[in-house]
């Protein structure tokens, strides 16, 4: 029994990281209706920036801040073409962008460590918290961050800002003739989402004490999408729930793997088949997810 609790702890850390990641996507999709299928790019941008700077000697706190700022900046820049493009084109553009980021990370070894990735960067309070307790500390660190993000986002959701975004999602022209600068709101939403994604990326790096291009496949973005839709688009609490459910499923089934008479590879493929099926079934029969409201659906 002793082994279970630390394991649950690590699962919860991952739930928290994905919750943060998906909360960022929820701002972009749920609030602003932007189709971002390249969300993982910002995880990469944040984590790599932090690690590269820190490995060059920049203090960790500053590295983190610069990483967040860079991710936000790139996100804001990406909205310039984004707001002009139709949703499907934006989807292709964003996923192409995230793949290019991954390619750069993979190939520009002089900057990013290439396929081997980066390690040896500082972790928050790394010198202070003893190694055996570190995961516990990180669990708290991640979840406090998630909580703060959640509260801030909830405030936004219920605020006039949130109201404007709801109107933009439904009918941009009406928002415009009522005096709302639609492009600026979309940019803000995208920026916010990118910053959250980059924060999640950094947390992931702190957890593994390593980062590499293999962490930034499009599948990660797909996970975020499934989490957001499962929980209920535009519903922050739903996003947290979705993260718990999805990651709970993925971790829980990993537990089962040795008990099942299939190779690990096949079993893991089977799990993913269920994940794909989950998304399909959700979209067909319950697009509003667990906590979403059907009448507020904007699909």
């Amino acid at each position, binding site marked *: 029994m002793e082994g279970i609790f630390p394991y649950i702890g690590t699962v919860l850390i991952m739930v928290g990281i994905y919750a943060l990641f998906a909360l960022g996507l929820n701002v972009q999709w749920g609030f602003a209706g932007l189709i971002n299928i390249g969300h993982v790019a910002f995880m990469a941008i944040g984590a790599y920036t932090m690690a590269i700077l820190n490995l060059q000697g920049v203090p960790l706190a500053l590295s983190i801040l610069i990483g967040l700022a860079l991710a936000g900046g790139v996100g804001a820049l990406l909205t310039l073409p984004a707001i002009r493009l139709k949703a499907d084109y934006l989807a292709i553009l964003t996923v192409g962008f995230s793949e290019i980021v991954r390619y750069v990370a993979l190939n520009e070894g002089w900057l990013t460590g290439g396929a081997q990735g980066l390690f040896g960067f500082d972790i928050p309070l790394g010198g202070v918290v003893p190694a055996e307790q570190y995961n516990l500390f990180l669990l708290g660190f991640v979840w406090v961050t998630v909580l703060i993000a959640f509260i801030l986002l909830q405030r936004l959701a219920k605020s*006039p800002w949130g109201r404007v975004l709801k109107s933009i999602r439904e009918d941009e022209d009406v*928002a415009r*003739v*009522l*005096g*709302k600068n639609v492009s600026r709101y979309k940019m803000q939403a995208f920026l916010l989402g990118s910053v959250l994604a980059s924060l999640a990326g950094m947390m992931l790096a702190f957890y593994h004490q390593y980062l590499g291009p293999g962490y930034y496949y499009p599948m990660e973005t797909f996970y975020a999408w499934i989490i957001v839709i499962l929980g209920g688009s535009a519903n922050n609490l739903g996003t947290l729930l979705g993260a718990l459910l999805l990651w709970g499923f993925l971790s829980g089934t990993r537990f089962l793997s040795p008990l099942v008479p299939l190779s690990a590879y096949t079993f893991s493929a089977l799990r993913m088949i269920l994940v794909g099926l989950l998304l399909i079934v959700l979209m067909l029969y319950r697009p509003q997810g667990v906590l979403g409201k059907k009448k507020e659906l904007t699909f």
Partner: protein
Amino acid sequence: MNNGCDIAGPALSVQDVTKTFGALRAVDSCCLDVTAGVIAGLIGPNGAGKTTLFNIMSGLLAPDSGKIFMNGQEVTHLPAHKRAGLGVGRTFQISRSLRKLQVLDNLKLAAQSQLGERIQNVWFQPGAVRKQERMIEEKAMEVLRFLNLYELKDEYAGNLSGGQKKLLEIGRMLMLEPELILMDEPLAGVNPALGEEINAHLRALKGKGLTMLVIEHNVKHVMTVCDVVYVMNQGKIIAQGAPEAIRNDERVIEAYLGAR
């Protein structure tokens, strides 16, 4: 009867505006001047280009050439959302109430200069935001009471009847407090009783000093409410003047008959 192309100080001045879509000249060198404080009507057969002209005037569409002035200021290339700040309101032909927002929220949205629409205020000045929200909500409820929609305030706008949605559009204008309103068929699809009510609202708005340009198909309403009428056909303004004069104008009659 002048040509309408004066560079005066009217509330709204449209000068030589043209818009082409491929082979179609939707708006053809249009000139329009609406003096402050009047209700002007814009009539014409279907497909004459009225809504396109409206889209250009409200900034949702850019003209190929020509200029637009509002209260003396050139707004031709001003983005739509900035025109609201100048005091321009716009309603839509098929009412575009935000169906997934509640009625009260629909109205609150229209208030201008909301502190709470800025992220930093939401997070760092919650008290000020709350205070302003309360004021906006009070005003919105007043407007709802005035329009007899108060009981529906928490209803999703998508559940309203057609006539109620039209009233909602007017309600948004009341919240916006514009000086100039572009109204695209405010009476379309509305029963006669409600139509009278809406007309009364329009007259009341005029009484407050607002200027209105109204697209309308219902000739009777146009005659009773409008001070001056413009007639548009195939993208051009073919006639303008007082309602009775227009009603008897041969070109106008021909335009409507020809369009059938």
